[in-house]
């Protein structure tokens, strides 16, 4: 591995972790697509700052990007508050307009400057090592690394300093307001962090990968943990893994690094989506079938309890409207669980089965508190 390769991966990992931190809060606040919106509108801030300052390296760019990021949030919020359009539509109205204005400004007044829309959308990580950050004659490493390292530090400090405020404002804005924690200020801080991160990341990886890195790892982590803290560090780890994996995928295929990292994020999400221990698809299917089985057992014992003499297996299925095959399976399972027993040809309740049946009839709603249901994910929406 050459030094350049190492540096590219280092940049990618730093970008990934820096994006994951504000991303966690965006995902939890159901504002994931604000990253997409701000990722595009920072272009306007860059263009405006460029017109004022005349170069692309000025610190004014960060100020411009942060201001336009806040402007985006503010416009969305104002539109929503009129009550005339809903939030999703408000986002869809604001960011294309600001982005369009930026593109028009570029093509009319800055046609010959290195400020093209392709680079904004796609980025090019492969060139990161060639752009060095030098101060008083010393080489401090790739520019993007220094830039994103600073952003990462700011984001980490933001979360460390305002962890409690962010947490309460995210999960219970009403409580936060009642406690005097100013959820509005927290919101503005978060959006500033998103804007600066998007600005820092966009020329390294492009706005689409910013979206991927801000939303992908936190959403993946969301399937794996219930803790805010756990979600934060898991997102960082997943982001870093995707960055390194994506880099080597790009290396193997000789393809776009940003594109490969975004694809890897999607692949990691798909794997976790299938396999996550309690929120994954397989776990959910398993839980559903277990629930169906235990419900069927309850119906079976209740049915037998009403019919003291016992009942043959074949008559039973007909009476309950079950298929032959399903009945066989359920009876077998209930036998194994010691709820029923076969007496010559008839099926009778064991003492255990009877006590279950009686408990069921006393507490008809017991299933609502059953462990299997408590684990079920809350219905979305």
């Amino acid at each position: 591995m050459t030094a350049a390769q190492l540096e590219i991966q280092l940049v990618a990992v730093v970008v990934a972790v820096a994006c994951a931190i504000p991303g966690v809060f965006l995902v939890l606040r159901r504002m994931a697509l604000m990253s997409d919106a701000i990722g595009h509108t920072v272009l306007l801030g860059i263009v405006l700052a460029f017109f004022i300052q005349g170069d692309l390296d000025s610190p004014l760019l960060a100020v411009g990007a942060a201001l336009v990021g806040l402007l985006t949030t503010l416009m969305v919020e104002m539109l929503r508050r009129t009550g005339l359009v809903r939030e999703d539509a408000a986002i869809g109205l604001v960011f294309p307009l600001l982005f369009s204005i930026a593109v028009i400004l570029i093509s009319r007044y800055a046609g010959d400057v290195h400020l093209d829309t392709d680079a904004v959308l796609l980025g090019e990580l492969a060139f990161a090592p060639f752009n060095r950050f030098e101060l008083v004659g010393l080489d401090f490493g790739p520019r993007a690394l220094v830039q994103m390292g600073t952003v990462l530090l700011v984001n980490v400090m933001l979360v460390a300093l305002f962890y409690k405020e962010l947490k309460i404002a995210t999960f219970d804005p009403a409580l936060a307001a009642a406690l005097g924690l100013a959820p509005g200020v927290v919101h503005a801080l978060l959006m500033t962090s998103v804007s600066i991160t998007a600005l820092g990341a966009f020329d390294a990886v492009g706005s689409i990968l910013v979206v991927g890195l801000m939303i992908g790892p936190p959403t993946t982590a969301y399937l794996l943990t219930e803790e805010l803290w756990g979600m934060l560090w898991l997102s960082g780890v997943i982001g870093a893994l995707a960055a390194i994996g994506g880099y080597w995928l790009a290396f193997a295929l000789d393809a776009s690094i940003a594109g490969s990292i975004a694809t890897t994020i999607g692949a990691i999400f798909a794997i976790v989506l299938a396999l996550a221990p309690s929120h994954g698809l397989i776990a959910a299917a398993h839980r559903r079938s277990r629930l169906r089985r235990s419900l069927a057992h309850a119906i079976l014992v209740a049915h037998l309890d009403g019919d003291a003499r016992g009942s043959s297996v074949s008559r039973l299925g007909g009476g309950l409207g079950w298929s032959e095959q399903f009945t066989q399976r359920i009876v077998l399972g209930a036998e194994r669980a010691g709820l029923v027993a076969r007496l010559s040809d008839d099926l009778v309740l064991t003492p255990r089965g009877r006590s279950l049946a009686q408990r069921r009839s006393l507490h008809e709603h017991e299933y609502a508190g059953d462990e299997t249901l408590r684990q079920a994910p809350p219905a979305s929406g």
Partner: protein
Amino acid sequence: MFDFLLDSTLRTIALGTATLGLVSGMLGTFAVLRRQSLLGDAMSHASLPGIAAAFMLTGSKASLVLVLGAATAGWIGTLVVMGITRSTRVKDDAALGIVLASFFGLGLVMLTFIQRRPDAAQAGLNRFLFGQAATLLVSDVVVMVGLGAVVLAVLALFWKEFALLTFDPDLAHTLGLPVRRLDVLLTTLIVLAIVIGLQAVGVVLMSAAIVAPAAAARQWTDRLGRMTLLAGLFGALAGVSGALVSAAIPRMPTGPTVVVMDSIIVIVSLLVAPERGLVWRAVRFRQQRQRLVDAMHDPSWSPMASGHDEGATTLAPPARGRDADHGERS
């Protein structure tokens, strides 16, 4: 001065952007009412691997081939989003974001493959990314008009079902309509409307073409039919005026100009649409305040009045409050 109106290239471009505006405006009505405004954004990005795959498989850059590829990928992306939100605790915004980014990333990877092929002058594919209305050919516009007509015909055919699905999916289910299949069909139409416009305005700006005309039309009417027609009209208007303005002013890209026109229509609608407009709301507010002040100066007025006089009834909040907005589903 108006020579450019006679230009046949411009006529082609204007016809293309008008078609895109009309179709995406009409379908956008449903996207906005169903709270799927950002679907346009996500699906236009998600269509990229489809475009790349269509080119890799057929080697053709014909508009129809690429548009169908885009539609397939966008459609798969939509189904993935719907599946994720239905079966896990991931919310729709996050699901859209993930599908958007990872599909787009996959598309980029595929594009870098294509770049290495000897037959790949990439120009024809790149315009799907950023949209180049200026390069629209008559054959492209024919494809747009043809697909647009199919989309609108299906919309007309299932009009009643889609209306019910949009406003009361539970009732639709109770009536025995195949809700999920209708849902997929309507979403497919929206995806088609999006990919039709891609080559004219590009992936980023397509979301405005979906959302803006519908959001503007919503301010003028409460009827679904009128809203749909009006959204189509607004979209077409923005398309044509955007094409004209960008032709009249040098170095003015068409796609962004169309979006600016769309936004102007939205702003005007938000301000002056009858009843809902912000200007009228402010006027009403002032009138009511004046009435209140007048009533308080009236010697016969008392705070304990039973509320049967004219002043009291007009003090009631306007019927159209924030909560009565938009035909809420919940």
